[in-house]
């Protein structure tokens, strides 16, 4: 009779998640006592909670912790991603209060939901067991379904929530089925154990369950990172969801999905590397091209940014395809830069938006460059960074990803990548064309900037520029993070 051994619980490995969960639960309680016009306090409390979590996360740098019998691993890789995720959550929360009070849906549950979603993402980053990754993903997704449909009075927001729920459930099915098949073929859900089994039983590489399992897992993650042709949900959900949620979704969950995707493929399926790099090559090309080409014709800024975020997932997939240290480090760096530049851009969208998500079209930006010069300059910097023009973070990120591809011999992929990048310049410039080259149609009613949004913009701007001019330190950290 086999005895069920209780695995060594190492709470240090999940300390940041524990802290953040506690903060979220406390906020749920506090929420009851905060009057509805003062829900902004919850935002600040959330930020404090995120900061404490970040401190706890960073303190583990360089000292990997394994917990729950190898189900979670708090290594540098996880820590780097968690910092990205915490930044994404923090910046998104900073722009939430302004938006939520404008749209009249300022109920306090928003902030705990964001925090729980972040906890889910953090588990995805540190999970080394498929079950943990899956649980993290579900925790994240369920919070996001609610968040996407958070603006009850807006039909679009409702549509976004429902659509995301249906397609999300669908993709989760793929992922779970893939995990089942892999378990069936190898007898374990632990990533390391799967790889070990495959090394000891070489024949498994030709076992259809194993290969199809890997493929289905890849499909599941591709949904989550919004890679073409699994991107269909993205534009509608991004456009319909409340803008801060969109900002959060485009940066955080994408980074978390990349973390889990990278970890699963590199840890569990090194045997099938040849297969999945080929698959990723195709996905990368499709994703970049589809995202950019469709973004060219978008008038709505949010929708344009949604398609551009598909394209950016494609750039990250280029680094993934390269499958070397530079590529992996490039993804880490890119996710960090993307968080800053994209949420920065969304923050400006929040500021110029009017109630009911009016003013969201690129035409509405006409003349902004001289009516609100500072805001326009900020948006320009973020857009130049997204377009990959130096001296910004976006350029260094792309430089890294494409050089990883070149190093691995994927010159063709790099060329497709840069051509895509050149095409993307057009739609980013289009925003600037309206901001600077056209006369305003009407005067802007200026609701003013709140300190929280200003803080978000400053952090995003400084980071975008610092990562663009002196990226050395962060790149070095990213390199260290991928030394598994």
């Amino acid at each position, binding site marked *: 009779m086999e005895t069920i051994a209780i695995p060594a619980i190492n709470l240090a490995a999940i300390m940041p998640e524990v802290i953040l969960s506690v903060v979220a639960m406390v906020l749920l309680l506090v929420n009851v006592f905060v009057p509805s016009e003062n829900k902004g306090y919850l935002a600040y409390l959330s930020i404090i909670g995120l900061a404490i979590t970040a401190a706890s996360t960073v303190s583990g740098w360089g000292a990997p912790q394994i917990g729950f019998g190898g189900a979670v691993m708090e290594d540098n890789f996880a820590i780097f991603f968690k910092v990205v995720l915490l930044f994404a959550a923090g910046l998104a929360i900073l722009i939430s209060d302004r938006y939520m009070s404008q749209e009249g849906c300022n109920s306090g549950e928003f902030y705990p939901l964001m925090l729980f979603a972040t906890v889910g993402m953090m588990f995805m980053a540190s999970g080394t067991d498929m079950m943990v990754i899956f649980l993290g993903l579900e925790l994240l997704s369920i919070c996001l379904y609610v968040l996407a449909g958070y603006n009850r009075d807006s039909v679009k927001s409702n549509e976004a929530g429902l659509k995301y729920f249906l397609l999300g459930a669908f993709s989760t099915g793929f992922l779970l089925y893939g995990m089942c098949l892999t378990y069936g073929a190898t007898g374990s859900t632990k990533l390391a154990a799967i790889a070990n089994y495959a090394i000891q039983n070489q024949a498994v590489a030709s076992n259809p369950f194993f290969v199809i399992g890997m493929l289905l897992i890849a499909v599941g993650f591709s949904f989550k990172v919004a890679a073409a042709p699994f991107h269909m949900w993205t534009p509608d959900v991004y456009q319909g969801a409340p803008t801060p949620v969109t900002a959060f979704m485009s940066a955080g969950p994408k980074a978390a999905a990349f973390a889990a995707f990278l970890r699963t493929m590199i840890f569990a399926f090194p045997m099938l590397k040849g297969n999945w790099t080929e698959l990723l090559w195709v996905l990368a090309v499709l994703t970049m091209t589809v995202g950019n080409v469709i973004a060219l014709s978008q008038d709505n800024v949010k929708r344009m940014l949604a398609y551009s975020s598909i394209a950016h997932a494609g750039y990250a997939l280029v680094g993934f395809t390269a499958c070397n240290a530079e590529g992996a480090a490039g993804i880490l760096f890119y996710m960090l830069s993307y968080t800053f530049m994209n949420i920065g851009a969304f923050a400006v969208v929040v500021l110029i938006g009017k109630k009911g998500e009016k003013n969201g079209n690129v035409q509405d930006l006409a003349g902004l460059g001289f009516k609100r010069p500072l805001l326009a300059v900020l948006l320009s910097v973020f857009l130049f960074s997204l377009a990959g023009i130096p001296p910004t973070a976006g350029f260094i990120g792309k430089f890294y990803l494409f050089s990883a591809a070149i190093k691995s011999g994927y010159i063709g992929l790099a060329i497709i990548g*840069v051509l895509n990048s050149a095409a993307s310049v057009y739609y980013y410039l289009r925003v600037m*064309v309206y901001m600077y*080259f056209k006369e305003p149609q009407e005067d802007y009613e200026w609701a003013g900037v709140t300190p929280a949004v200003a803080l978000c913009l400053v952090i995003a701007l400084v980071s975008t520029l610092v990562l663009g001019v002196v990226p050395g330190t962060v790149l070095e950290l990213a390199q260290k993070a991928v030394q598994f």
Partner: protein
Amino acid sequence: MSQLPLLSILTFLPLIGAILLLFMPKNSHGAIRGLALAVSAVTFVASIPLITGFNPTGGFQFVENVPWIAAGPFQMSYHLGMDGISLWLIILTTFIMPIAILSTWTAVEEKVKEYMICLLLLEVGMIGSFVALDLFLFYIYWEVMLIPMYFIIGIWGGKNRIYAAVKFFIYTMVGSLLMLVALIALYFKAGAGDFSILRFYELNLDPVTQTWMFLAFALAFAIKVPMFPLHTWLPDAHTEAPTAGSVILAAVLLKMGTYGYVRFAIPLFPDAQAKFMPLIATLSVIGIVYASLVAMVQQDVKKLVAYSSVAHLGFVMMGIFALNQQGVAGGMLQMLNHGVSTGALFLIVGFIYERRHTRMISDFGGLAKQMPIFATIFMIVTFSSIGLPGTNGFVGEFLVLLGAFESSMRPWAIIATSGVILSAVYMLWMFQRVMFGELSNPKNQNLKDLNAREIAIMIPLVVLIFVMGVYPRPFLDTMAPSIDNMIAQAKKKQAVAMNVPAGMINPHAGIPGAPPITMPAPAGEAAPAAQAAPAVPTAANPHAGIPGAPPIEAPAAAPENK
């Protein structure tokens, strides 16, 4: 003085100026203009020590080298330096900036602050590109230049400005991104180290790799020059840009392309230079003749000058690709000449546009009577542009043609010579229609002659036209050692690749066809090049026409090779 980081100071002075401008009150236009002018003048003065302290040895001087980014496989340095090739281009930049700023004293009345900030930022990018010795740093400055120019055209340009600005940006961007790919590939070929151009000079790349990398670099530079089939952005950009934008675009930005060839494309990939010489020469000759013919039929003076730019840069390209002392020196000198004379032409066009708000040749006629000072200056500049002996244009064109005749480019040089005559035709004809004849158009009756400011802008240019035309030695002497170095280096590598002494190359042979292909093709990107390579040597026949298509389409075929 050698302790002072002069090149950094030069690069960042305009940036400091731009930052100061940010804090100026929006509506005090006079103060804003004054500050911008002062900053650009100080930058010019600060660039003088480069000439006085220059040591004509051919090596890099005023070098600054500080490690900048070190992460993973990459090391980037903040590596600056200057030699005889870049010296006068830097001076040209700092010299033309105050003139450009002065020229828009009254032309730009709106958004003056933003305009001046853009101009100063542009100067940062331009000087930075000329002094960067680290390829990564060069690339950054090269891209940074685009942004202010885009805004200058797009905000202060003419009717069709948005189209022109976007076209300018995307054209340049496509080229430079492909260059970025080649740059990274080059770095991995070179192995661990930094992005210093000096390190890359030492590489011995196999011909197939050289071909591909040359194509990527050459495309980026050819768009900037611009060379014949890629020139279409230029007339649009020039016509729409405000005067200062056109002046800077013509005087400095186009030189980035030709400078890129001299500094990067040729010395890095000398075998490819030999191989593509016929192609480049053919495109240059087409550029010269075609652009001249197109210039002849232009209705708009500014467009005419824009097309004349394309023709002039065709000469520069021929000189550079002749790859001998006269040719390259002539090409370099012609770069400066073009900067001075075409810059001056755009200023002149700006003067009459400001007065009449039209640039159509048919709206003018007989202006000489009304504006004698203007007529005199215009005449001198026109002669300079044509290349009349005694003006700067003559020396440059003469050297270029001499160099081309001495090299294997002779057949092309013969056709190119017709460009000298054609330039006289379109320039003089235009001059005649604008300045001479009856003052028939009543709107021209009350035109005022140049005022003191405008004369002050033009005098330095006119003086330079004569100085460089009569006594070009100081310019040529300072350039010579660096040019000799560059040529010797390139020729040496070509000779190694071909296993024959450089002197034995038959000047009429066009290119050494076979040898490059016999080299072992390396792994990675070079593999498809092996198949593509045989297509190019067909250009060995100098009269084969335009083998334009294969090299331009070639990169697109590469994706199949993952």
